[in-house]
């Protein structure tokens, strides 16, 4: 007889369309970059490390005096810019994902323990988060790399140890919410063990929130790696990190701005794409406004 409708007040049609366009765009950017990262050695037209001092700073294809063999030109040492860019995608994606896995494990463990246990344990977790937030990330990462010498592993570990705060905050608050839900209480009553409840009830329910955080953290890690490499204390040369490419090309940027534009735009587009994907994921999973 009468229609009983579930009214959704928030989502209007056209906005959804707009949003999904952004999500697809983000997915495309991330997909292409991942592809380039994985198949880099087969895709790159040249070896990214081979120098040719007779062919330095060749301009990219849209300018005059280009060489078709080097569509994005060459750098100050005559290395093929497109090949370096493709290998740089490997570094960025590798660091972004590895750092996020490291920081994710730390943050989620801390957050879930705090949120699940409550009381004194939770106070301790909150205190750890507060301490972490008061530490200046870039400075400490630079200092560690400066002290121990730069290497990829060290960089991943350092950033992983520094970027777990958002994971911990989100894991903690969502665990608290889930813990108070009926079905979790029911599981308690049914005599299930703590570990079982954590693994079967809590984690699946907070996973979507954590997935959204993960995208943000990948983007942040990529930006930080680029900044550290730019400052000379990130990825060791001659590895072609995009940040390092910008740093090495800096001297030439006033005469040939494209030397910093190409890796910079790549960096910007990748991070932009990851964030778009993250926003789309958040809408899709309905995990609410991120703050």
């Amino acid at each position, binding site marked *: 007889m009468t229609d009983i409708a579930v009214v959704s007040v928030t989502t209007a049609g056209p906005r959804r369309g707009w949003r999904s366009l952004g999500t697809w765009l983000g997915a495309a950017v991330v997909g292409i970059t991942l592809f380039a990262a994985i198949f880099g050695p087969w895709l790159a037209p040249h070896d990214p490390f081979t120098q040719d001092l007779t062919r330095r700073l060749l301009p990219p294809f849209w300018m005059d005096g280009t060489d078709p063999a080097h569509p994005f030109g060459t750098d100050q040492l005559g290395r093929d810019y497109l090949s370096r860019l493709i290998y740089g995608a490997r570094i960025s994606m590798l660091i972004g994902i590895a750092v996020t896995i490291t920081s994710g494990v730390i943050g989620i463990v801390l957050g879930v323990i705090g949120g699940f246990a409550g009381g004194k344990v939770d106070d301790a977790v909150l205190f750890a988060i507060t301490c972490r937030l008061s530490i*200046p990330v870039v400075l400490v990462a630079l200092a560690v790399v400066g002290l121990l010498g730069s290497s990829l592993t060290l960089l991943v570990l350092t950033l992983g140890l520094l970027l777990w705060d958002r994971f911990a905050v989100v894991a903690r608050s969502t665990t608290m919410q889930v813990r108070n839900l009926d079905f979790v209480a029911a599981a308690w009553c049914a005599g299930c063990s703590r570990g079982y409840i954590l693994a079967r009830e809590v984690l699946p329910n907070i996973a979507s929130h954590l997935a959204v955080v993960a995208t943000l953290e990948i983007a942040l890690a990529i930006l930080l790696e680029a900044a550290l490499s730019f400052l000379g204390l990130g990825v060791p040369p001659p590895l072609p990190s995009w940040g390092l490419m*910008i740093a090495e090309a*800096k001297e030439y940027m006033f005469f040939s701005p494209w030397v910093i534009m190409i890796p*910079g735009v790549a960096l910007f587009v990748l991070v932009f794409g990851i*964030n*778009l994907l993250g*926003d789309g994921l958040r809408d899709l999973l309905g995990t609410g406004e991120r703050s």
Partner: protein
Amino acid sequence: MLRFLIRRLIVALLVAATVLTLAFALTRLSGDLAISIAGPNATQQDVELVRKAYGLDRPLIVQFGSWVGRAAVGDFGESYFFKQRVASLIGERMPITVTLGLVGLAIALAISLPLGVLAAAQEGRLADRIVQGITLIGQAMPSFWLGLILMILFGIRLGWLPVSGTGSWQHFVMPGIVLAFTAVPALTRLTRSGMIQALSSDYIRTARAKGLSRLSILLKHALRNAAIPVVAIAAVQLGFMLGGSIVIESVFALHGVGFLAWESIGKNDFPVVQAVVLVLAVIYVGLTLAADLVNAVLDPRLRGQ
């Protein structure tokens, strides 16, 4: 309220103590500090001399005790490279970093507040989407790269501003803009969501029922409430900005503490690095306390208690 603030103060002190320990541990990470200080060409004898001179031959716990004891009264020892008291070195550089931070924050607020209000007032419409696009762009923009682009554009092509250095107020414009850019996305989002929440509240319905003008409803009734958390977060954001200014100071060769830390890291000048980490952390903790106070002052519900 007072009890709350006292509790916060105690937590702040504990955080400072923890960071103090971490800052000490940081410099011992590399193993033998004496070898690093003496440099790559040093002989075994040199290293031993250094070890004695810097007290590195003492047990670790004694070294830690003496570092804590002196750091607590603001004595961070002497810089290996600058041959100067670290405290006075930081004291000289701090005004530049603080100026940069405040300029950055002012610019960030001047951009974020209007953008956030506009987006909330036009929620779901074109203007809102544009603002959200701007925050996404700001979030994805590598600050050092933005700095370089501004340098090319305003420094070289247009010649309006000095490219690097510390001489005049003009030197702070570009770094300030870049630093502001790092805070704009978060502050805009916060303003927007705060305004949306305020605009959907009952007291806004009352204000509309009173026949007030749109402007008065938006700026007097909604913004006043939405701004409270934004102003508080702005203080915290300033802490992040000071910590992150190292990148921007390096790009623009602005000789603040960030630049000092960068130089010192390159020169293995540990007392300076240690001290800068600690000082920045303490400033951050102080700013979060200030944020609570600001909150208490701005919100009449907290003020009374």
